[in-house]
């Protein structure tokens, strides 16, 4: 038995020999038996256990063994959770906090304000305080929230494909001199990345930093910002500057929308677009000319020559449009601007025209960005690959890039990676490049890591994390770069502060706090640079045959957003195709090639074509787009991804449809969606097209009816009303002409039978404090470009579920605000215009959905909005049938049942997640209204105009959506309702919609109008 000396009760007797007094001989002789006898109080056997251990020992041992038995269950150190006895300042459970941060997109930081609910980011918005932002945001910023919670994110450091740890990686880097290192990055203006990349390159001779972007074109670090709000005439030479993929999309859209203001005698700009495909910029154009991609620069050269610029002769010198456009540009002088993609052959032409017009400094402004925004292009990457293959590098560090996917097969990047001793990939996913690398490090999402950057105009920002990395192994790009540059593991926070120590003046801590609070450092915008000295090179005409136009996809970009189901299900703004990439051709080209699209039972079954360019062939479904240039095939990047997902494949028994309806059921979201067109890049010449198959199902959210019918009917029904500027000036109320001819009954025409009992007069409604505000919305069709930002913002705000390609093809998509796109044209050969109409719930005052619901699950709120009571809904779908706008969405399946757990974190806690069998629809963001109601109630005041913003309104870069209180006659929405261009669609049904539209104005050039 264990002896515990401290507690040993059998202490030895005093063995001192010198005893003067004694009681007995035994005592005197110190007999052990005697001393034992005298020490015990009781007789032998009357106390203690019969064994060796005492009662206390027994209890000690029992206690210890119990404690040890309990500990065997613990594999982690003990963690304590603590209630907020003293809660952190400003934090109230359930009340969201907002933090300024930023997301880098194409080398420019988009300033953001991110909402955090109880510690998790739940919504992304633009930073309205930022000097270059109006608080709007694009689809990629909105959807980046989903990227944080992406269930397919890489979660573990991988060493040759096997699980490893960050510590192992750190040890590996620290112990091994990286030697000659090649670093591959996407463009960035981050001072910290610049600093660390420079340090890394300087560490060993022979190192190199390679930057490339999705254009795979070489470019210098100069940038051009256009001030469309100062422009009267705009010519775009092939640039989709309003599109979501444009680097300066938000600024372009905002300033362009301002330039289009036509009310109150303001000068409205005129937009000419020369393009090959059909983009939303082309849709916004007053005049749009479809040319093959190789002809655009030549057309620009013809315009340039007419304006006296030094440009070579071109085949378009006699084109009537060139003369008319040149004249119009000359008339506007420095208030005209020509826009082109910086990497496109038309860019020098555009620069030359801008110089000739004197636009530099007024409508166009050039600045030089950071060194890492200059890109190498395909040649640089090919050189890197061959240098790698030749053994000129010891380490290849790929930070947030995916060259194995991005590059065409003609550059054997994967093979080159195999020739480098160590290849390190840092990325959000175990993607095409990660599986070829010897190390893979999961990259932290921007909402999880410290960083910095510069907006397009140069304003410096610190980007702060809102949450610790969801996966322990995840580290940011700067942490990995620093590890390679110095061999030590330092936190991103320290690295960014180190970079900023030279930037901030005065009290560093104070200034630092200010920057992370505001999200930017004022006064740090780039200084304007002198316009480029332009020499327009000779314009080469393209091949005679079919040209291939490769573009980043308007919804998933270059594939880096492909794993976000929101974006996969976001309709292409022009084709409305979801979950696929298609080869777009003009209807005439499709007919000439004998390609067909079968519309069978509302589903599109299309031919597939093999597009062969040089030695590469890509097989794609074909899709005719009216108005495209003939003999052009437009293909989009970003599809055909192969991302490794660790989630098991969903299997379900035959009676269960989960395996069919779960978009997350079979591997990564992006895997198996569409086809990669990377192989078509870098090859020149004419493409050959052969029909390779037929009957391929393409899912779209529109055009389930016949296409010609839809556009004509939409115009005939007065859904979209538009006029030219001249007509508008003469007849400001032109939209009235679109009112239905036969009968337009006023509500007051009806007998008074029900009026005394009108629900709006019921005490329950009138006595409600909400009754004071009557919410309404106005959507300006003249400002809307159709960029889709509203749809994704709504999806993020309102927990809208994704249903997958199969369900969309069955017409079951769930978007609460959709963009109806109609083509308008006189025939297949005539120019085709495109109009876009955002359509949320119209919140009819006399709502037809409400009267037919048998259980009163959809009712009016006292503040005049039409609301769904999900708990009460039994799903008869009668309301959806009776909705003339068809904005109601039904939960045909339990979409959330199969949702991966991490995605639940992305849900807005203030919006119910809908279950199987209930109807849902736009609520005018009632949760935001109630949030403000609560606030003003506490502060005992009334709601200020603009205090409530709906999610779509907040995101809209064009400020096309106005929302507010109709009871306040001075509110922005009341003013917008007084606009002469205001009309309601289907007003003749007496449903009294609360949502109005403002008619669209075109500003055509009278000289060209005859031809349009």
């Amino acid at each position, binding site marked *: 038995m264990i002896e515990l000396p401290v507690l040993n009760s059998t202490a030895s007797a005093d063995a001192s020999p010198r005893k003067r007094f004694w009681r007995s001989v035994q005592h005197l002789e110190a007999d052990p038996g005697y001393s034992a006898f005298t020490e015990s109080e009781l007789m032998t056997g009357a106390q203690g256990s019969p064994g060796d251990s005492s009662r206390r020992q027994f209890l000690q041992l029992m206690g210890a063994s119990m404690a040890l038995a309990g500990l065997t269950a613990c594999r982690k150190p003990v963690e304590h959770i603590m209630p907020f006895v003293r809660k952190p300042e400003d934090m109230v459970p359930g009340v969201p906090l907002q933090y300024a941060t930023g997301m880098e997109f194409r080398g420019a930081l988009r300033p953001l304000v991110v909402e955090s609910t109880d510690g998790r980011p739940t919504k992304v918005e633009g930073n309205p305080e930022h000097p270059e932002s109006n608080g709007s945001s694009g689809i990629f910023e909105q959807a980046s929230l989903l990227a944080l919670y992406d269930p397919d994110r890489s979660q573990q450091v991988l060493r040759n494909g096997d699980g490893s740890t960050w510590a192992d990686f750190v040890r590996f880097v620290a112990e091994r001199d990286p030697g000659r290192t090649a670093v591959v990055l996407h463009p960035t203006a981050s001072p910290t990345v610049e600093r660390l990349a420079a340090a890394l390159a300087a560490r060993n001779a022979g190192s190199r930093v390679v930057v490339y972007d999705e254009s795979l074109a070489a470019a210098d670090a100069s940038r051009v910002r256009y001030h469309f709000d100062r422009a009267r005439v705009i010519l775009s030479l092939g640039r989709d500057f309003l599109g979501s993929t444009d680097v300066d999309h938000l600024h372009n859209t905002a300033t362009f929308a301002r330039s289009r203001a036509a009310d109150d005698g303001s000068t409205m700009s005129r937009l000419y677009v020369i393009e090959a495909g059909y983009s939303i910029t082309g849709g916004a154009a007053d005049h749009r000319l479809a040319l093959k991609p190789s002809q655009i620069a030549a057309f620009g050269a013809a315009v340039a020559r007419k304006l006296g610029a030094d440009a070579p002769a071109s085949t378009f010198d006699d084109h009537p449009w060139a003369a008319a456009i040149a004249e119009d540009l000359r008339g506007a002088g420095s208030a005209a601007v020509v826009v082109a993609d910086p990497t496109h052959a038309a860019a020098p032409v555009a620069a030359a025209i801008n110089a000739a017009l004197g636009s530099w400094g007024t409508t166009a402004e050039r600045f030089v960005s950071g060194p890492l925004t200059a890109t190498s292009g395909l040649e640089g990457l090919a050189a890197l690959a061959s240098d790698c293959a030749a053994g000129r590098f010891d380490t290849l560090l790929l930070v947030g890039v995916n060259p194995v996917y991005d590059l065409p097969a003609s550059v054997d990047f994967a093979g080159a990676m195999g020739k480098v001793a160590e290849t390190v990939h840092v990325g959000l996913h175990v993607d095409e490049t990660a599986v070829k690398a010897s190390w893979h490090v999961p990259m932290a999402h921007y909402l999880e890591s410290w960083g910095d950057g510069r907006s397009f105009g140069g304003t410096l920002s610190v980007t702060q994390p809102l949450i610790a990395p969801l996966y322990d192994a995840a580290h940011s790009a700067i942490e990995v770069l620093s590890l390679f540059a110095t061999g030590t593991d330092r936190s991103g926070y320290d690295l960014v502060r180190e970079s900023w120590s030279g930037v901030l003046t005065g009290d560093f801590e104070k200034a630092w706090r200010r920057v992370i609070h505001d999200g930017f450092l004022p006064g740090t915008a780039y200084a304007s640079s002198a316009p480029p000295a332009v020499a327009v090179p000779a314009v080469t005409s393209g091949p005679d045959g079919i040209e291939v136009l490769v573009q980043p996809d308007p919804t998933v970009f270059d594939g880096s957003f492909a794993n976000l189901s929101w974006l996969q299900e976001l309709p292409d703004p022009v084709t409305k195709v979801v979950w696929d990439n298609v080869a777009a051709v003009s209807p005439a080209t499709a007919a000439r090639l004998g390609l067909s699209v079968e519309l069978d039972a509302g589903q599109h079954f299309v031919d597939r074509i093999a597009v062969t360019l040089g030695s590469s062939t890509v097989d794609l479904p074909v899709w005719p787009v009216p108005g495209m240039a003939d003999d052009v095939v437009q293909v989009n990047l970003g599809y055909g991804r192969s991302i490794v997902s660790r989630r098991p494949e969903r299997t379900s028994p035959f009676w269960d449809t989960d395996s069919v309806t779960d978009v997350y059921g079979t591997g990564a979201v992006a895997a198996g969606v569409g086809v990669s067109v990377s192989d078509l890049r870098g090859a020149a010449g004419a493409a050959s097209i052969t029909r390779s198959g037929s009957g391929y199902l393409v899912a779209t959210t529109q055009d389930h009816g016949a296409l010609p019918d839809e*556009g004509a*009917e939409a115009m005939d029904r007065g859904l979209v009303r538009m006029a030219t500027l001249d007509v508008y000036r003469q007849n400001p109320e032109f939209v009235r002409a679109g009112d239905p001819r036969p009968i337009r009954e006023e509500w007051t025409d009806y007998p008074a039978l029900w009026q005394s009992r009108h629900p709006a007069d019921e005490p329950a409604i009138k006595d409600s404090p909400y009754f004071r505000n009557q919410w309404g919305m106005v959507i300006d069709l003249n400002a809307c470009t159709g960029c889709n930002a509203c749809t994704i913002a709504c999806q993020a705000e309102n927990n809208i579920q994704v249903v997958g390609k199969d369900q969309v093809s069955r017409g079951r998509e769930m978007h609460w605000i959709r963009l109806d796109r109609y083509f308008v044209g006189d025939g297949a050969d005539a120019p085709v215009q495109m109009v876009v109409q955002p359509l949320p719930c119209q919140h009819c005052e006399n709502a037809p959905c409400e009267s037919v619901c048998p259980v009163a699950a959809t009712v009016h709120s006292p503040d005049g909005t039409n609301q769904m009571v999900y708990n009460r809904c039994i799903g008869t779908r009668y309301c959806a049938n009776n909705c003339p706008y068809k904005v109601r969405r039904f939960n045909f*399946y339990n979409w959330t049942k199969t949702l991966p757990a991490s995605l639940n974190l992305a849900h807005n806690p203030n919006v119910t997640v809908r279950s199987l069998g209930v109807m849902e629809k736009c609520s005018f963001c009632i949760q935001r209204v109630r949030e403000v109601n609560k606030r003003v109630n506490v502060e005992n005041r009334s709601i200020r105009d603009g205090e409530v913003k709906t999610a779509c309104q907040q995101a809209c870069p064009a400020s096309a959506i106005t929302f507010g209180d109709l009871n306040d006659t001075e509110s922005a929405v009341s003013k917008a309702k007084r606009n002469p261009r205001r009309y309601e669609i289907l007003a003749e049904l007496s449903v009294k919609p609360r949502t109005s539209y403002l008619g669209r104005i075109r500003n055509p050039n009278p000289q060209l109008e005859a031809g349009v």
Partner: protein
Amino acid sequence: MSTETHHKTAVHALDDLPLLGRDLSFHEVTELVAHHTEKKTPTAWFGAFALANAGLLLLVAMIAYLFWNGTGVWGLNNPVGWGYAIVNFVFWVGIGHAGTLISAILFLFRQQWRTAINRSAEAMTIFAVMCALIFPGIHVGRVWAAYWMLPIPNQMEMWPQFKSPLLWDVFAVSTYFTVSAVFWYVGMIPDLATMRDRATTTLRRKVLGFLSMGWTGANRHWRNYEKAYLLLAALATPLVLSVHSVVSFDFAVSIIPGWHTTIFPPYFVAGAIFSGFAMVVTLLVIARKIYKLEDIITIGHLEKMNIIILLTGTMVGFAYITEFFIAWYSGVKYEQYAFLNRAFGPYAWAYWTMMFCNLVFPQFFWFKKLRRSIPFMFAVSITTNIGMWFERFVITVTSLHRDYLPSSWDYYTPTWVDVLTFVGSFGLFFTLFLLFLRFAPMVAIAEVKYVMPQADPHYYDDHGDGHAGDQAAKLARSSHHAS
């Protein structure tokens, strides 16, 4: 049978048409009808019942599959929120019209020929309404909350929304079902008593004794019975008209072009009678042959039903054309588009199926020869039912698939679940109908006897002198049915 030739002219009802195929005695009538419930179950019945049960099982399986997964297993989509379920509902309710019309309205109008067919037609009605009632229950997204459509007092003080036509539907159809069932059962009591008296086993006697409610055939019983029957007929008559009018409100009260039509109530009622009679013809043409009831359900009865089919078919056709005229005359472009789209749009095939089946084929009944031809009337009864199913399909689906905003236009295709659920509902219908044929008196024995010549108080007055003629023979005959 000695008087057969002698009294040939007397075997005529008031309207001079023979009500029975040949001169039958009361006993023979009882025998013809009742013995089918008493004999050993024929193998063929088991075969048919097994088939019907397989259909019923299919229905149960389809409903289970639907409940487990959700409404998505059907072919519905965004513009088309109602498809097969509602089409089937209206189809079955429509079929459920003939029975009560025959028993109640024709009773009030003293149409004696109805007695041969009213029992089976009413049974058909009840079973059809049962089939119909399934669909509104299962078509909702959250079936476990479907009872919220009923006005049940609850702690939330939440009532249904009384402005919704779907709620009116709940009341109209359930009232119709209740009254029809009561009417059917009350009418059956004397016949059940007859069968009770013929019962040879204790169990049969007990069950029939319970169901016949102590009927003895006493004068007092007959008096109460006839009064109740008359009152129920009067109660059921407005329901015949109201139930399908209310069903039509589901569409007419909405604002969807093609639905929003004031012509719907009468047009739906006419269509319902049309389809109901067609179904009665379909069933009775088979039943009278198999059960050898040709002498009770005569070709004359079938001809009369065919005349009603011709009449109502023409009314329905007139309504179709009126809708077109009104669409043009109204000048409302949505209305005009909706009707042009019906006839020439993607669902033109359904529209023209409907037009041919409902408007064209019944017109052949103008020919007496054709309306007395069993194969021809059987074919027309089938095409009428197909046509009327398509009418509901055309109204429900083609109006929804292209309404106001062209961007939302889509197409509706049923899934296999839709189709098999519909097939399964026939399984339920035939299961119930076969049970009826096996266990209940399929012809109203007592009512047929009322209208037989023997029921005429002057029947025995051969010489027209107020005195009975050959008493012995007459009494011998009448004693047969005294039991």
